[in-house]
């Protein structure tokens, strides 16, 4: 945590919240009876976990096809307890170690890139009374109903450097500093959950962490290495031109010989412009000019890679950039329904081209403000539980490839995420006479509510669609009192990509059944390598063994 002058207003706000809490105690409240909450005893627990995974496919762009996909080792320690009857401490420490991976060697990945030792959560809970709790500190908060997508789950940024089958969203959420209030408002039979979170983390923890840059290139044009969970690097070109070898021109340039150039137009996402193919020095100078910021060039005859100068405009610690929001929940006619609002920043960047391309490709990675307006609802029916979640973001920033109409490569569109889920438990006695099958079917739809204007996923030639539909189906059951558990998950996106993941978990009853072994096969499929979202990773199938001991 950095202490800066700009945090003084933040402390004033936090102090104001504390005053509010005191007022809540002073004012009579139905929940504030004579009852005193029992003091929590102190507990220490945690787990040791290992994920070991191997790739089942080779990468045609990697120098080595060593199969080691992951060997992630975790130690999580939790300390919980009551300092007083009303004040509790929760401290959760996470230590992670991963070795260097052969497929990433030489790919610009730093040593200790994935290693960490830090507080995952560190908070003080002030249980004012059974109807009012304030939580101060570093926390993870999850709103919404979706299990497979981040619809209402808007508060915490995500660590996307490790991903796929062996993680769930919980493992990738990054904690943030916040004050959180949880209140039962008896007079309207509703609960209220609010969060106020100024940016107090270092920059890189304020937004989604993503794998560092794309593959490095050898002088002969072959690829050296890439971050393990980065997408196949040439998808950005292949969809547009049907080939890895393409030329992308800036206005006015007309390199000879290539029919793939679109004269007078600028194509491609702003972040990365590549020319792959032998090039003579004179041609290079003629094409790109001599003033070319931030780009080293290999020798003549080699492949030329042009990377613009990129700066990052992270959210700052000022009050104006603070995040805040609230969520309600009310029982109405058997439904549990509520609304939520969140003001924060996008956690994935959009790229703004400053000064135009001719000025030398200065790109600013921005994390613009966003407002999220959402609703949730769930109800128990005889056939199962239905749950809904919707998140509307007006004027959301997207990157466009049409830099003629939008020289800074940014457009604003209204955006909607909508989710519907069915949960059901049932018996199939012929298959399992003594335990239930759990079924989850979840649909997530993503909608751009305006014209598309050539919006693309930043850094890749992956176009958005006006609507995108994903279905998740998950089925699981257990035998011998859950000594053996089987699960099957299928995710399918209507664009033609998805994930098929069977898994088996064995929990022997040694060590008080706290040791478990899970094996999963993450089979990513897609029509092609640039099929969003899963096709990008379709060469990244893995088999993963997860061993965990709880203590």
């Amino acid at each position, binding site marked *: 945590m950095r202490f800066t002058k700009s945090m003084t207003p933040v402390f004033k706000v936090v102090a104001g919240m504390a005053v509010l809490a005191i007022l809540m105690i002073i004012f009579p409240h139905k929940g504030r009876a004579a009852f005193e909450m029992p003091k929590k005893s102190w507990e220490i627990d945690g787990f040791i976990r290992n994920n070991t995974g191997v790739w089942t496919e080779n990468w045609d762009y990697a120098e080595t096809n060593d199969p080691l996909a992951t060997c992630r080792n975790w130690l999580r320690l939790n300390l919980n307890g009551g300092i007083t009857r009303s004040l509790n401490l929760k401290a959760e420490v996470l230590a992670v170690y991963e070795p260097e991976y052969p497929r990433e060697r030489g790919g610009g990945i730093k040593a200790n890139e994935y290693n960490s030792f830090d507080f995952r959560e560190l908070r003080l809970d002030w*249980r004012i009374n059974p109807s009012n709790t304030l939580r101060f500190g570093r926390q993870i908060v999850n709103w919404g109903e979706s299990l497979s997508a981040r619809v209402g789950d808007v508060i915490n940024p995500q660590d996307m450097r490790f991903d796929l089958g062996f993680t769930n*969203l919980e493992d990738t959420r990054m904690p943030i500093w916040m004050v959180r209030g949880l209140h039962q408002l008896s007079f309207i039979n509703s609960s209220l959950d609010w969060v106020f979170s100024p940016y107090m983390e270092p920059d890189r923890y304020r937004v989604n962490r993503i794998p560092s840059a794309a593959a490095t290139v050898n002088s002969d044009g072959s690829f050296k290495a890439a971050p393990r969970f980065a997408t196949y690097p040439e998808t950005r070109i292949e969809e547009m031109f049907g080939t890895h070898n393409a030329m992308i021109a800036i206005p006015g340039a007309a390199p000879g010989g290539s029919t793939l150039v679109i004269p007078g137009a600028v194509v491609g996402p702003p972040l990365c412009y590549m020319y792959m193919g032998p090039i003579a020095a004179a041609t290079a100078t003629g094409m790109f000019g001599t003033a070319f910021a931030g780009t080293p060039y290999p020798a003549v005859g080699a492949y030329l890679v042009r990377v613009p100068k990129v700066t990052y405009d992270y959210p700052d610690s000022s009050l104006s950039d603070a995040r805040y929001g609230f969520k309600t929940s009310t029982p109405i006619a058997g439904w549990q329904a509520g609304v939520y609002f969140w003001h924060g920043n996008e956690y994935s960047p959009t790229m703004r081209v400053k000064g135009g391309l001719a000025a030398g490709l200065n790109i600013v990675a921005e994390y613009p403000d966003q407002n999220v307006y959402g609703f949730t609802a769930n109800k128990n029916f005889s056939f199962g539980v239905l749950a809904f979640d919707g998140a509307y973001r007006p004027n959301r920033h997207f990157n466009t490839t049409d830099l003629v109409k939008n020289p800074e490569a940014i457009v604003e569109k209204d955006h909607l995420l909508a989710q519907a889920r069915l949960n059901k438990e049932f018996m199939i006695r012929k298959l399992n006479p003594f335990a*239930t099958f759990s079924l989850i079917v979840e649909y997530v739809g993503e909608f751009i509510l305006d014209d598309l204007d050539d919006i693309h996923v930043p850094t890749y030639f992956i176009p958005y669609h006006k609507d995108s539909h994903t279905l998740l189906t998950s089925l699981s059951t257990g035998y011998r009192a859950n000594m053996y558990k089987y699960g099957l998950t299928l995710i399918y996106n209507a664009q033609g990509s998805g994930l098929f993941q069977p898994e088996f978990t064995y929990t022997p009853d040694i060590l008080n059944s706290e040791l478990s072994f899970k094996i999963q096969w993450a089979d990513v499929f897609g029509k092609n390598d640039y099929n969003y979202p899963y096709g990008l990773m379709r060469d990244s199938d893995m088999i993963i063994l997860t061993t965990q001991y709880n203590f």
Partner: protein
Amino acid sequence: MLFFSSVLTAAVPKPGDVIDSSNVAQYTYYFPAFMVGFIKNGNDMTESSPIHVGDIKTPLPPESFRKASEKNIGKVTINPDDLSLTGFDFCGYPFPEVKEPHKSEKIIVNYYYKWRPADYYYDDKRIITSASQRKGGRIVRSTSKAACIVFVGRTAPGFQKNLDNPNGLYWAQFNHYMQLAFKDLKTLQWRYLDTKKDDDLWSYIPTLRRTLRMLSSEKANPINGTPLTYDDFFGFDGKLSQFTYKIIAEKTMLGNIAMDEEVLYKKHPDGYYDYPVFHGPDFPYGIADTYVVEVKPKDPRYPESKKVIYMNKINYQNMYSEIFDRNGELWKGLQMNVVKKKTTPGEDSYFSSQSDIDFKTGYWIQINGAANVQDNGLPADALTPGMFYTW
């Protein structure tokens, strides 16, 4: 003929008797068949479990509850078709004197509205402990906590007023699982006053950091791979309107009807009891008159064909429950163990824990929840979907 012959040849249990594998044949009348098996040879799950008969009396419901029950004499009527009551304010037994007509129905509503503390919870001195064992496996121990608030029918001194109840609840029950494999999994169950309305269930899943609405119509499904189901709690905890009821016998039984809490924790300070059924000289059984009630589901898809529950006539605590599968074979046996207690205001009371034994899988679980703290003034909104996970 067999029934009469078993009565005629049965020994009459008296304090000081020890019933073990050598003489259990004389006492079969006083136990359900599965208990006879435990005494004889442990049912191949555990060691043989001898029962000591003590001078044990059934604990009465608290005096405030008994007084409230007396006020209902002659005032309450029942519709036998849907078991709805007229003239009942939820305080006390609706029918403290059980007579025909509709005796079975009156008994079951007495059971449904039996005494409960106005609220209870577990502090950190003593929590719920359970021991379980798969067939051929090792004993696995786990812990949990719970809290409960009853919204109507509160008779405890100082807590007679019904709580504000915009959701029409009878009670709200919270459970907090502390077994490390699913640590801090928390559940909330709402039971409504409307006996036709399904319960509502929520689970706070710590790995999701979110509360999920759970399916409550399938309350006969096993919970987390154990033999427990929501409908089996306390021997029978299903929705009144979803079953039919018939008294098939009234008989004297031997059961664990009044354990001493301090003896329990003196002998087992950590609270774990690593056997399917309580037995031995430390936990003597008492004699009690019971109603034997056959409970059958109206839904043909219900996994059980029937339950037979042995209900103590004095305090309506079940002593045993036998559960039969769709083929009519014995599937599970439940033993309820009643522990004598005192409420916070000082009334004599009790609380029931249970063991569940699944004879099809050979899996048993013994839950010791004796040590709750009763009648404390928990406020109405402590157990709501928005707040329960903050406990």
